[in-house]
């Protein structure tokens, strides 16, 4: 690498296993000053486990971790890591929701003048830091819970910056971001780089990786496949190293005959949604695009009766529905894959098998269960989606992020509904598994099912949708047909252009 810059982090021969199952072995990795080093790999390859070792959350079973020239010992833990300048931006929010932005930025490092906290000075410095990293739209005195997902992530980064980070680790930071927010984050990463901070960046959005990486290391099944230097970075070769076969970043789906209308949504309003109408036909995928916060998830919640309509009507197969709870919606053949998987999608402390069968039993009113069948059904979906696990008995908590997403999909595929709402179906899923999920979605269409697909992943919207509906500020701003779908049009309507 750049010969004169300093090596901040050096990992040699690190290994880790959980109750006898090896996650990775003999892994080497390093980061230099002012460098963005991306770590790419399939779901369950061991990326998150690796950063948990760096951040001190897990101790390695063996190997050497050298930070700033000093080898760490077995007393290494998160607070030592932070003292050494290793700051981790985890995927979940780790800010204190009831404190203000500035209180979060300075937690444990409050500025004290004559024995009292100097709020004015803290406010000023917070403003400076936020300005420096380029997110000056955030007010330091607003409570964190009032900020959106992306803004919270920026505050987390600002906090790491205040904490004098030398190495910043980001695990899928853009997983729930819209286009603009991704742009903003990449700018921040550029800024950190210019400050000499070494960044370890993990993302399944390969476009981002190719834009910002100085080096890319590919990990597969816990083994390092190769580290690419900047001038060697080559998309198709990296993807091949990741998934072990050729895969294109642009998915080409089969076309499916589209049938009659199954669902009509007429002038629906509710919290965050205003007067939205559209219809959905058998075998069709309707993509919902828009900025984060445009009301797409809120619309899905109305359709699935998670929240109540204030006006408008929904017809399924020509009949007006009157769903009171999601239970009614499920009985009528609806399925909803929610976007926040840990909060509303999974039973983390339960087995894969319980997670898989639950909705099916609600839909079909099966009151007596057959454990053997539950096992075989779950195994079937584990095979189908290539979920990496030790078996249907494994607790979902111990799966990697992308594999947890596959368990949610299993639950709804097995539910055998007719109308599917997918809210960010491939969030956190690797490029190989994405293809498999797309294939399953097309298979659903072939069976005459209809799909509403909410996605902030533009290539996904373009590749998968038969029609795209774009929302802006809770309203539908446009509907475009297959032959007119392109990213410029979608973007301009998402930003508030009207029909």
């Amino acid at each position, binding site marked *: 690498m750049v010969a004169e810059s300093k090596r901040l982090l050096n990992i040699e021969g690190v290994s880790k296993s959980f109750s006898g199952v090896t996650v990775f072995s003999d892994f080497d990795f390093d980061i230099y000053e002012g460098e963005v080093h991306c770590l790419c790999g399939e779901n369950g390859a061991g990326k998150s486990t690796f950063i948990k070792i760096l951040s001190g959350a897990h101790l390695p079973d063996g190997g050497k971790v050298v930070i700033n020239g000093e080898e760490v010992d077995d007393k290494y833990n998160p607070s030592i890591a932070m003292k050494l300048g290793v700051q981790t931006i985890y995927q979940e929010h780790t800010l204190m929701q009831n404190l203000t932005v500035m209180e979060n930025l300075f937690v444990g490092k409050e500025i004290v003048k004559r024995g009292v906290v100097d709020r004015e000075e803290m406010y000023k410095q917070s403003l400076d830091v936020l300005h420096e990293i380029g997110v000056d739209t955030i007010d330091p005195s607003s409570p964190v819970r009032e900020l959106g997902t992306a803004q919270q992530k920026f505050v987390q980064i600002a906090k790491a910056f205040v904490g004098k980070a030398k190495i910043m680790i980001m695990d899928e930071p853009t997983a729930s971001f819209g286009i603009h927010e991704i742009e903003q984050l990449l700018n921040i990463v550029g800024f950190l780089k210019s400050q000499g901070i070494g960044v370890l960046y993990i993302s399944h959005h390969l476009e981002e990786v190719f834009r910002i990486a100085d080096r890319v290391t590919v990990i597969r099944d816990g083994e390092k496949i190769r580290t690419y230097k900047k001038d060697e970075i080559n998309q198709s070769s990296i993807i091949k190293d990741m998934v072990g076969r050729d895969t294109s970043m642009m998915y080409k789906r089969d076309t499916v005959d589209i049938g009659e209308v199954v669902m009509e949504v007429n002038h629906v309003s509710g919290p965050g949604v205003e007067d939205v109408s559209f219809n959905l036909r058998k075998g069709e995928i309707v993509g919902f695009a828009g900025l984060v916060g445009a009301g797409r998830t809120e619309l899905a919640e109305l359709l699935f009766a998670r929240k109540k309509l204030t006006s408008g009507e929904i017809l399924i197969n020509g009949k007006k529905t009157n769903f009171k*709870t999601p239970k009614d919606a499920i009985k009528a053949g609806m399925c909803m894959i929610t976007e926040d998987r840990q909060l509303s999608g999974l039973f983390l402390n339960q087995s894969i098998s*319980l997670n898989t069968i639950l909705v099916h039993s609600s839909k079909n009113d099966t009151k007596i269960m057959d454990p053997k069948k539950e096992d075989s059904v779950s195994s079937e979906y584990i095979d189908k989606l290539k979920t990496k696990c030790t078996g249907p008995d494994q607790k979902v908590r111990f799966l990697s992020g992308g594999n947890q997403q596959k368990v949610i999909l299993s639950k709804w595929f097995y539910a055998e509904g007719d109308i599917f709402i997918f809210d960010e179906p491939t969030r956190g899923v690797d490029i190989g598994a994405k293809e498999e999920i797309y294939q399953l979605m097309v298979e659903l269409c072939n069976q005459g099912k209809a799909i509403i697909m909410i996605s902030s992943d533009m290539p996904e919207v373009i590749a998968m949708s038969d029609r795209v509906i774009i929302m802006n500020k809770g309203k539908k701003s446009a509907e475009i047909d297959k032959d007119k779908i392109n990213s410029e049009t979608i973007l301009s309507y998402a930003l508030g252009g009207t029909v």
Partner: protein
Amino acid sequence: MSELQVNKAEINKIPIGKKILKNDNTYLLTGLILYIVVISMIAPNFATQYNFSVVLQQLVVPAILAVGMCLVMVSGGIDLSVGNLLSLAACFMAFVIYNGGSVFVAILSAIVICVAGNLFVGFIISRTDLEPFIVTLGMMIAYKGLALITTNGAEFPIMGEMGFATSIRFFNFPLMIFIMIAVYILFWFIFRYSRFGRRLYAVGDNPEAAFLAGINVKNFKLLVYGINGLLVALASIIMLSRNEVGNPYLGTGLELDAIAAAVVGGTALSGGKGNIIGTFLGAVWIGIISNSLNVVGVSAFVQYIVTGGIIIAAVLVNSLRSKNA
């Protein structure tokens, strides 16, 4: 293929031995047997047929309450009121019989009191965001008052009227033992083969996800508390049948035994975790500890300390094991 990826064929091949080793109950049972062996060596009058039958009979009421507690706790709740509710129901039954009412009417009234009381608790817990701990603590105190009112502070002896749980015997064992075994078998089946059992874990683990999976979480919780009420009624009938005197202190402290049994058996206070066999082993543990300490001659005061210590140790072992899993 990585070591982690286990395909279908291999999954079914996971040796049964490993499954048994991974099971928390194996440890609970092994520990129990070791404990019994050790105590038998210290105190020769521990491992006698007579003593075991005493332990068994004392076990029945807390063990039945522990089933209900396990249900409630797996669903994410807790019920501190069961002990005093049992007292209230027993007092009321004794009151009815003492005043010339039939045993049938008495039993019916116990069922009505317990189920109605627990449905009321369940209603408040499922329809508001009050903590189950607080609601049932309040009910626990209120039931005590009701029991005192029912008896007016006195006792109602009902000798010979309602002794069936102990007087009817099969193979020299009193009826109540068979009732307890039947309750455990029934709930073992429910946990293993019913959708209700699956939903219990789902609701306890993540109520929001359960709601979105088509479960009416509110009514489900109501049902769970209702079932718990039925079990309390059953326990109160057996309790009165054994004691043949209704007094407001019959059930005092039983809620703690039930919670201890469930927790030692691997049930988590946070919900979503627990099982019936573990709960039974936990109930046996709690029963054996106090009996064995008596037999060995440990003073009643010290017994409390030892019991508390063993409960914490059991939970500690559980948590260490699940961390490594």
